[in-house]
């Protein structure tokens, strides 16, 4: 079993990285290096392309292979040129939600439409983190950011559906909480021939403190956001034991917790992307729902699956791949 220093010494160029303590970017690099190592890929034939933003720093300069650190939003277009000219390059693009689906949205959907064999890892921290936490195409409606002090007036993309509709032939979504599934998904993408897209929900202690209104020290946030991702997601295709509910507090969650516990029910406060801080009650819903709804400090009792983000595999099919078509063209042009 290989230890972390093995991956570091073989694949990591310079450390410490420039990421904030507990940033998800480092975890994604961790998963990526394990995936390429497990597959035994030739390091000299891997090209990591990135745009501008925190995510762009995952490969540049941390990855000890060929890296192309481009302009904001254009990584996929740069990567298309390199891949189309030299299809032997295993070309992986690291882009953020703003970089990839904001300014880079046009290149994203066209590369998906072409089904060019690029592996795109879109790191979604739900904001423009590097530049200070502005709203991104993924920021939820109503959320406060530095550019939406009165609540975000916009609605986010569902990026996996967008990319799937555009024609991507492998589409998955994971988070930095799901490190085993993410590593496996990157391996699948690396082996898939065609536009392979993985969206990764990633924790950003610096900006998500405001976005998710997480009170507490910055130090406490990395583990807390990771747990929030675990709490707020559901995995497609996995059997779902739904024997719990959430009591959504009117204002102070500790007041709600006290009231729930006074009913002799064991409960705990958790962070939930959809509802903010809530009281999770691990009991059969029927047995507790009515009692909880009656509590003065509870506005609403949510079913365990409500407002959860779906993780997993959204698309995996084979479709003619763009560089293969380019090779066909050369044959046709030469009358072969």
């Amino acid at each position, binding site marked *: 079993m290989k230890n972390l220093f093995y991956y570091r010494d073989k694949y990591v160029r310079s450390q410490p990285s420039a990421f904030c303590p507990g940033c998800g*970017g480092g975890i994604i690099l961790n998963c990526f290096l394990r995936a390429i190592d497990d597959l035994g890929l030739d390091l000299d034939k891997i090209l990591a392309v990135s745009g501008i933003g925190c995510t762009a720093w995952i490969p540049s300069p941390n990855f000890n292979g060929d890296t192309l650190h481009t302009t904001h939003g254009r990584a996929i277009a740069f990567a298309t040129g390199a891949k189309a000219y030299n299809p032997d390059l295993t070309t992986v693009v690291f882009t953020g939600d703003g970089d990839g689906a904001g300014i880079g949205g046009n290149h994203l959907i066209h590369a998906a439409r072409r089904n060019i064999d690029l592996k795109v890892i879109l790191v979604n921290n739900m904001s423009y983190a590097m530049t200070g936490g502005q709203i991104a195409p993924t920021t939820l409606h109503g959320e406060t950011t530095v550019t939406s002090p009165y609540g975000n007036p916009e609605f986010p993309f569902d990026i996996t559906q967008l990319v799937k509709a555009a024609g991507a032939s492998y589409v998955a979504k994971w988070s930095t909480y799901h490190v085993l599934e993410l590593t496996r998904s990157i391996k699948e993408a690396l082996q898939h021939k065609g536009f392979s897209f993985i969206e990764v929900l990633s924790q950003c202690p610096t900006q998500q403190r405001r976005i998710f209104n997480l009170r507490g020290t910055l130090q406490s946030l990395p583990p807390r956001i990771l747990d929030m991702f675990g709490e707020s997601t559901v995995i497609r295709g996995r059997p779902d034991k739904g024997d719990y509910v959430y009591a959504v507090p009117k204002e102070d969650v500790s007041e709600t917790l006290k009231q729930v516990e006074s009913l002799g029910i064991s409960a705990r406060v958790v962070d939930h992307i959809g509802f903010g801080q809530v009281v999770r009650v691990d009991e059969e819903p029927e047995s507790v729902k009515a009692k909880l709804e009656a509590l003065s400090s509870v506005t609403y009792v949510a079913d365990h699956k409500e407002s959860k983000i779906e993780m997993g595999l959204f698309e995996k099919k084979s479709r003619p791949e763009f560089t293969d078509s380019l090779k066909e063209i050369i044959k046709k042009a030469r009358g072969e």
Partner: protein
Amino acid sequence: MDTAKKFRVTIDEEQCKGCLLCVHVCENRGGKILKESDKKTALGGVKPVAEGDCIGCRWCERYCPDFAINVEEIKDA
């Protein structure tokens, strides 16, 4: 029956930023041996320390964003 494997946990002080993700996952999924120490890492974060017998689950290695923790099996002679 002492056939359980033994592991040595190493923290790279120069690269650890003290994000404590390793402590968190060790607490929740591992052998509960990683703790916050009262010392700081070179980069000014809270330095984690391993106290007790690591079970080699390696969750800490999976979640470390800075490649700063290492779990090595000790093959005794």
